[in-house]
């Protein structure tokens, strides 16, 4: 019995120290990434982007990009940084009427670490003027993503093609004015 009382505090101390060591080690290790959930988050970003685009919310759209993001068009011209994207969207939304974009991600690939990804797919921009004319263009793209310290995925860049030949809007469509 005396032996038990002698050992119990010692064993308890060792056990507590061991648990503490395990907890500290676990705390410094990267958490396990749910890659499928991250892929979903990237797809959700596309949905959210579509809504901001339809609302012509330039500042929200600029916020989808990292400060050093670079977008390259099929002709090699580039849009860079917040000022570049702001100017692009401001020009795009200057005309009255509606503008929508429909993004169809074909592949979304996210790293096991959940911090970098890329996506391929198409985007269809449809513009309807106040007199009812509608023009639609579909292009293919690669978009690259990074997850920020705030846990948000943002576009770090991308590239798109010329309007696809099969695009319904490769040529302007005209709808009768109401």
């Amino acid at each position, binding site marked *: 019995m005396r*032996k038990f009382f*002698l*050992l119990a505090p*010692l*064993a308890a101390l*060792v*056990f507590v*120290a*061991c648990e503490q*060591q*395990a907890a500290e*080690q676990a705390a410094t*290790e*990267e958490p396990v990434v749910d890659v499928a959930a991250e892929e979903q988050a990237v797809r959700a970003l596309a949905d959210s982007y579509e809504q901001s685009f339809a609302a012509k919310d330039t500042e929200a759209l600029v916020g989808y990009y990292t400060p050093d993001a*670079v977008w*390259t*068009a*099929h*002709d*090699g011209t*580039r849009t860079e940084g917040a000022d570049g994207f702001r100017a692009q969207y401001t020009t795009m939304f200057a005309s009255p009427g509606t503008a929508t974009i429909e993004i169809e991600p074909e*592949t979304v*690939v*996210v*790293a*096991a*670490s959940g*911090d*970098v*990804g*890329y996506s*391929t797919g198409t985007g269809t921009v449809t513009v309807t003027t106040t007199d009812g004319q509608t023009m639609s263009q579909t*292009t*293919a*793209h*690669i978009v*690259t993503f*990074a997850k920020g310290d705030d846990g948000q995925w943002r576009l*770090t*860049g*991308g*590239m*798109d*093609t*010329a*309007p*696809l*030949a099969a*695009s319904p809007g490769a040529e302007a469509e005209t709808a009768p004015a109401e």
Partner: protein
Amino acid sequence: MHRFLTLIPAAALVLACQQAATEQAETTEPAVDLAAEEQAIHALADGYEEAFSAGNVDAVLAMYTSDATENSPDGTAAPAADAVRTTMSQTPPGSTFTIEHEKTVISSSGDLAYDMGTFTIAGTAPDGQTFTETHRYLVGLEKVDGAWKLDATMSSMPVGAAAPAEAP
């Protein structure tokens, strides 16, 4: 002696604790050397330059994943195998292919990356005119069986002064 015997169970507990910590450390992924991974991706590009310049289609195709796609600036998308064969068959023999990296980003897990920059094809056309074409590119890369492979690629139309030069 009695005190010594009393300490043996405690020592055994410490050893068990150490062993558990070691096992946990062994199951943790080793830290990725991102600089080495970037070097590996750039080495892949060096190999691409050599294989393309040598007209070695099979060597170029070996650098793509099995389901890789290649998007041309005109919007044509094709399996990389078809796109590469077409491009290389249309490139005059003896042409050189060079790559300039602008930015290479690698995931902290070292299994996914993207790379952007420019590539230049220079050579002499069948009519004797020399040409130099520089395009921008963006590629997504995946590590497959320990080797980086091109997974998704896209390039722009020629940029800058790409007019054919007069033959000497």
